[in-house]
């Protein structure tokens, strides 16, 4: 978990970045605090042809079918001088209202790819649902697949390649998660309080809340 501005690690449930103080309020100040209506494929930069848009939309739809909880969105646009791509992606996934996405798929379940053809950069953001299963390396893996295409200005081909890799990675991750869901749950569960930790150590690393531990505690008293 990193801050979208300083790209430093932040702890879970941080209200603001402990390093640079960035929060959603800063993003709202930069891009606006009202909701933005858009579609799962919004080509504001106009880099896709009609047929290319169709094929990208088809792939987005098929990913949505294969992963009933998740939706994927692609936004292309020139950000200009307003800020960097991470902050924009972070803001758009929180403020965006995706009109063609079913209501049972909230933005928490979204994966957003932002492409800026002017600054020639692209980024990926994802919602809280994927927080335990998805990280920066995964997004880098997907985007790097598209790099050679985007370098040649073949934006649609690159986007398709990126989306396919994303689908492949999600499938793989889903299988892994099914085998050991607790491992991923631990990544996002509420941290153990220090007092409980101390008690656990004193109790010989037994479960603090167990019946045996309580009985032993009674005896000690």
């Amino acid at each position, binding site marked *: 978990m*990193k801050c979208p501005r300083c790209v430093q690690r932040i702890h*879970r449930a941080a209200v603001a970045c402990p390093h640079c103080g960035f929060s959603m309020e800063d993003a709202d100040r930069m891009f606006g605090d009202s909701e933005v209506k858009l579609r799962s494929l919004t080509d504001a930069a106009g880099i896709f042809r009609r047929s290319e848009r169709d094929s990208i939309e088809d792939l987005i739809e098929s990913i949505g079918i294969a*992963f009933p909880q998740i939706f994927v969105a692609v936004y292309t646009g020139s950000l200009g001088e307003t800020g960097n791509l991470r902050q924009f992606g972070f803001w758009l996934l929180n403020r965006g209202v995706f009109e063609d996405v079913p209501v049972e798929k909230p933005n928490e379940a979204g994966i957003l790819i932002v492409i800026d053809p002017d600054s020639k950069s692209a*980024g990926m953001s994802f919602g*809280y649902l994927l927080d335990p299963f998805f990280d920066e390396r995964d997004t880098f893996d997907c*985007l790097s697949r598209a790099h050679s295409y985007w370098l040649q200005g073949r934006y649609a081909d690159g986007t398709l390649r990126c989306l396919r890799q994303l689908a492949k990675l999600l499938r793989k991750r889903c299988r892994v998660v099914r085998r050991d869901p607790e491992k*991923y749950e631990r990544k996002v569960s509420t941290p153990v309080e220090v007092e409980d930790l101390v008690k656990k150590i004193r109790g010989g690393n037994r479960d603090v809340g167990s019946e045996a531990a309580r009985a032993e505690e009674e005896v000690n008293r």
Partner: protein
Amino acid sequence: MRCLTLILTGIFSLSAFGFIEPPMPAWDAEKRQQMIEEGWLAGGSLLDFESAPEDEKEGPSVILKPTAEELALEEEDENVVSEEYLADYFAERPAGHLVDPQGLISSRNRKDLDSFLAYHSGDSSIEMFVYVFGKDQEIPGDVREEEVVERLYSAGKPAVILYYYMGAPQRSAMYLSPIITDAVSAAEQRRALQSSVYRAADNSKPFGQLEAFLVQMSIRIYWMERMAEGTAEETMETVPEGRQARSFAKNTKEEPVAAQSVPSWAKITGSVVAAVVGLLLFLWSAFMWLRARARFKFPEFEVEPRLGASHAAGIGAVISFSSTAIPPAKQRDQVPDYMRRA
């Protein structure tokens, strides 16, 4: 009045057909002479035969009609195969399997037939020679088919000689070279010819009939081969599948002698490879189908919001594609944009 006329006509007709002919009136010689002298005789100019010229008295000359024998002879002459072709037909054993000196079959069809017959001869130990005649043609009486067969086909590879009449397969005749005459029963020969004629009758076009006839005959010759070898039953109404499948069109192409020379291990290997490939294709199709139908669901865990964002705070990678000098490998370590070189 009209009825009366009809009744009278009927009576006269009956009397004319059913009764004895009444005697004709005759002139009395004296009375006739008297009438002539008086100057008038009713119908005298017509009935005066005596005054007619001599040649007219003899009556019209009678032309003799041809006799039935003469007529039959003329007809025969028209349909009999012309003498000029006889030598080509019957002088010597033909070089090709199709004997058609009259050119009754078009060159293109002849080519197909030649290749079919050549294929048959290569495939079978009994050759097949086809003599083609016109629909109504007759072989001259002085040509004896048995003698021809004996003279031309006593030596060499056993053969079936067929006299085929274009458009009239039912007139076909079949002869066997003397070597196999005893081995193949007359009943089997008759059956072979009959089944070939029946097969030909299914087709309406003359050449199609010939094709069908020869294909069926080729199948029947297979049985004759076996009979000659003594390995077949006396009656054979069923045809082996391989032979049944052999069609004229197929045989004109390369069905192949080469295929028969393929060793059995190669056939088995080929079959196994084909089966494995088929199985793999099936499995792959099934896998793709299942994959398309697969649904992936992640477990939903409670995640506390970060940075005041209500929906998402998952910050992924940002990649630059501005220059080939900055490949993805160099961008793996994400840094804030303000720290990146332009």
